[in-house]
C-alpha cells in the first residue's frame, strides 16, 4: 500500500510505534481521509489509456510510460506536472478536490487526457 505510506507518513509512524500492521491505519487516523484508492493510466503508443478516467476524491493516479519515447504528464491548469518520464518511469498524483483535470504531454501536445474527480 505505498500510496497510504506516502499520504500518511505520520499516521504510519504512529502505527509502527504502536506495533500495528498498516491495515489498522484507519484506526490511527479515523477521520483523516477518504478510503485510499489507486488508479492507473498507461502511456502507450503516444496516448493516455484510458484518456478519460473518473476517480473518487483521495485517489492516487499513477501514470506509467510504456513507450520507448519519453513523455510527460502536465495539467493544463498547472495543478501537477511530472518531469520527463522515460520508458518504464512512473508518476503519481493524489486527487483530493473534485473537478475535471485536463492534462497533456508537454513533448507531444497532441496527447491529451482528463481525470474527473467526483464522489462515488
Amino acid at each position: 500500500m505505498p500510496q497510504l505510506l506516502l499520504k500518511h507518513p505520520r499516521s504510519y509512524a504512529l502505527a509502527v510505534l504502536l506495533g500495528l500492521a498498516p491495515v489498522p491505519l484507519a484506526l490511527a487516523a479515523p477521520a483523516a481521509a477518504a478510503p485510499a484508492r489507486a488508479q492507473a493510466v498507461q502511456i502507450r503508443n503516444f496516448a493516455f489509456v484510458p484518456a478519460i478516467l473518473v476517480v473518487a476524491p483521495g485517489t492516487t493516479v499513477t501514470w506509467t510510460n510504456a513507450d520507448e519515447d519519453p513523455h510527460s504528464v502536465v495539467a493544463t491548469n498547472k495543478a501537477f506536472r511530472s518531469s520527463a518520464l522515460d520508458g518504464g518511469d512512473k508518476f503519481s498524483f493524489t486527487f483530493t478536490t473534485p473537478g475535471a483535470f485536463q492534462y497533456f504531454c508537454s513533448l507531444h501536445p497532441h496527447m491529451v487526457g482528463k481525470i474527473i474527480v467526483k464522489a462515488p
Partner: protein
Amino acid sequence: MTNDRLDRRGFLQCAGWTGAGALFVMSGGVAGSIGLDSAVAAPARPGRVKPFTFLQISDSHVGFDKAANPDARGTFVETIAKIRALPDKPDFILHTGDITHLSKDAEFADADDIVREAGIPVFHVPGEHDALDEGGGKAYLARYGKGTQGAGWYSFDHGGAHFIALNNVFNLRPGGLAHLGDEQIAWLKRDVAGLSSSTPIVVFAHIPLWTAYAEWGWGTDDSAAALALLRRFGSVTVLNGHVHRVLQKVEGNIAFHSARSTAYPQPAPGTAPSPGPLKVPAEQLRSVLGIRTATLVPGRDRIALIDTPLA
C-alpha cells in the same frame, strides 16, 4: 533591424568556433585568408551569392539506448567521423534539434564533445527533447543561447544567403502542434524587413513548419504567419528534423524538407499506431540514418539537397 542579426563575432561565438587556424574568405571571387582575430573584429560585409556547401544533421538523441538503436551515441560518432573525412570541407553544419534524448547535462556535454570533432562550425536549434530539464529549456539556452534572441532564435548571413534559426518546441500547448509564438514571429518580421527579395533564405527549426501529419503533431500551429513573411523571397528553403525521415513539400517559392535522424527511424505517417522509434533489423539501421548535404548555387532558385545514408 540589422542589430537583431548576429554579426560576424556572433557568428563565430554561436558556432562555438574553437579552431586556432585561419579563416578563408571569398571577396570579389578572390580567396584569401585572414587570421581569426581579425575575422572576429571585421564587420560583416554583405557579399554576393557564391556557391557553397553546408550540412544538415538532426535528431542525434544522445542518451537514447532502447531497442531501435541501443547505441545512438555511437551512430552520432560515426556521423561526425564521416563528416570529418569529407574531402571538401563544408562551411558549417546545421543541427536541427533533439541533440539529446533527455536534456541531461551529461548528454549535452557528450554531444558537444562529439560534434566538435567535425572541425567546422555547428549551428543549433532545440528539439523538444532538449527542453526536458526543470527549467523547460534553460539548460539548452545556457549552452547554445549566447547572442540569440528571445528563446534562442537568431539569424546570420553566409555566402549571400540569409539563415534563420527558429525555436518551435518551447512551451508547447495542449491539444495541438508546435508553436512559434507572437514574439518570435514579430522578430522574424523585423529580421527579414531589410532584405532584398532575391536573397536566398534558409529557415531551420526542429518540428516541420508545414503540416506533415497533424494526428502525430507533425506541424506548427502558427507557421502560416511566419511563412507569410517569406513569400516575397524567390528562394526559401525550410529544413527541419523531428520526423526522422526524408519528407518534402513545395509550396510556391517555399520548399520544405525534413531530414533523417542519426539515431533511429520513425514510421511513415499513419503507418503505425504511433510515431515512436521504429525498430528495423540491425543490419539495416544505418541505411535509414543519414546526413544531408546542401549546396547553394547562384542563379538557381532551389538549393541542391542530397540525403546520404550513414551506410
